[in-house]
């Protein structure tokens, strides 16, 4: 990085080379990935790097990272509830740990530790169960009690005065936060270098299917012939999948977040409370990033609401009374598609050549590398990797759900 800086200083103040290029739309691609977020770009990258498939187009209706990849609260963790979930997200954390080296781009992954608070006996039991499942799968995760919580997070109110006193917490040291835009840009750059075409401002308007097999994609910039399409448009996945006549078990609901003005460093862990529907972390700039549970009704609208701000402010003050004078800088919303079991849906559909990477609810960003990697393997070999078999679409008909509600998000 520093050599680049020095080189740039003698560069006559010319702008640095673009991280990815623009291309004309080709007539044919081996693989078309719909959705230029972290998932789609990661899949393109691993297709090119690990399987030598470089004739790939990534279609993005807006700019890359405009959807959930740029709207999440950038928390990475693997302390889930089911063995299938823990195994999958643990591989993701491992890939994130190597990602700066892998992409030669600093993604600023800070493994500062992740605390999930329990305020009731039932909550403590759930945390205990998660700790056991996590440890069996080799994930560093354990139950800690108010004295230890206080030493990790001195400003947290661990007294017995609040309405929801803190009884215990699930402590997950490898968890942390990351710069989510950098992940998107890093994957985009490395995919571009290997020959992947990234098409921004290119919206898919239709998908052509002949005799049960995908033959092409219609876009606002023209027609593309292809035999393989991956739908990686979490949030909007139902609208794309409807183009091939397949229904998904998803309901799209907005999720809001907000950020405060910058403060001096005072919080170096991620704090989550399911009972209070809140998660909070402090960025390197000092701002507190706070998120809550999903909105009360389904919508594709990304408008923020005052009800959300009032709710989250009350809940954060319950945990950190000392923040009462801190001002909110901005708020935003992203859209999340919630499956009934809070686990993603990845793999084949009844339409030959149409693959899905959907159902990413409120937990999609933290799975980007492993989702991209496993789906690239699926596309290259035609065989679903063992890690994603539990997340197949047919599990709903087979009554074989992966119930992740207790650990996937807060307050559902």
């Amino acid at each position, binding site marked *: 990085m520093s050599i680049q800086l020095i080189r740039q200083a003698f560069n006559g103040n010319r702008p640095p080379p673009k991280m990815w290029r623009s291309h004309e739309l080709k007539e044919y691609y081996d693989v078309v990935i719909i959705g230029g977020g972290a998932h789609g770009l990661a899949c393109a990258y691993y297709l090119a790097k690990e399987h030598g498939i470089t004739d790939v187009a990534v279609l993005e209706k807006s700019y890359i990272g405009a959807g959930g990849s740029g709207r999440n609260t950038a928390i990475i963790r693997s302390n889930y509830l089911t063995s299938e979930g823990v195994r999958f997200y643990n591989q993701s954390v491992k890939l994130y740990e190597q990602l700066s080296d892998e992409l030669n781009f600093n993604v600023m992954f800070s493994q500062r530790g992740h605390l999930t608070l329990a305020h009731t006996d039932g909550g403590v039991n759930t945390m205990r169960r998660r700790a056991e499942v996590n440890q069996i799968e080799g994930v560093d995760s354990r139950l800690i009690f108010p004295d230890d919580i206080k030493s990790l997070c001195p400003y947290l109110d661990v007294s017995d005065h609040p309405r929801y006193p803190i009884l215990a917490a699930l402590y997950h040291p490898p968890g942390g936060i990351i710069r989510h835009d950098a992940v998107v840009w890093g994957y985009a750059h490395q995919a571009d270098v290997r020959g992947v075409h990234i098409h921004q401002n290119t919206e898919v308007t239709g998908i052509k299917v002949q005799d049960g097999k995908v033959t092409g994609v219609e876009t606002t910039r023209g027609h593309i012939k292809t035999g393989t399409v991956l739908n990686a448009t979490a949030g*909007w996945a*139902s*609208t794309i999948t*409807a183009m091939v006549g397949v*229904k*998904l*078990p*998803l*309901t*799209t609901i907005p999720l809001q977040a907000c950020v405060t003005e910058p403060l001096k460093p005072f919080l170096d862990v991620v704090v989550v409370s399911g009972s209070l529907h809140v998660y909070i972390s402090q960025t390197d700039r000092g701002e507190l990033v706070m998120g809550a549970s999903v909105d*009360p*009704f*389904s*919508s*594709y*609208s990304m*408008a923020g609401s005052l*009800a959300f701000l009032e709710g989250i402010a009350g809940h954060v003050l319950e945990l950190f009374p000392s923040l009462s004078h801190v001002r909110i800088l901005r708020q935003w919303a992203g859209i999340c*598609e919630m499956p*009934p079991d809070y686990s993603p849906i990845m793999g084949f559909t009844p339409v030959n050549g149409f693959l899905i990477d959907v159902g990413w609810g409120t937990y999609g960003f933290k799975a980007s590398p492993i989702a991209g990697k496993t789906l690239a393997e699926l596309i290259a070999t035609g065989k679903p990797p063992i890690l994603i078999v539990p997340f197949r679409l047919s599990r*709903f*008909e087979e*009554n074989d759900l992966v119930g992740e509600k207790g650990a996937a998000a807060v307050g559902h």
Partner: protein
Amino acid sequence: MLLLTCPNCGDRNVSEFRFGGEYGPRPKDPSATSDAEWANYLYMRHNVMGAQTEWWHHSDGCGLWFLAERYTRTNEVIKTFPYVKRDA
């Protein structure tokens, strides 16, 4: 969307209501319904970006379950109306 019209009570703050999900007709004869049809009724959703017919419950009011038509892109409510069993 700040207000929703309950067929009984009229315009009320939307916080009085609970969202009940997209409307889908229930299979008529449970014993003649295949697993695939049950899965479709229980889990699969159109999840449209556009006009959606959906359930609402006036939970902090009269307790009525009723239907609404709403644009999911803008949250504009087209109409609300009581549920009438189609074929009893």
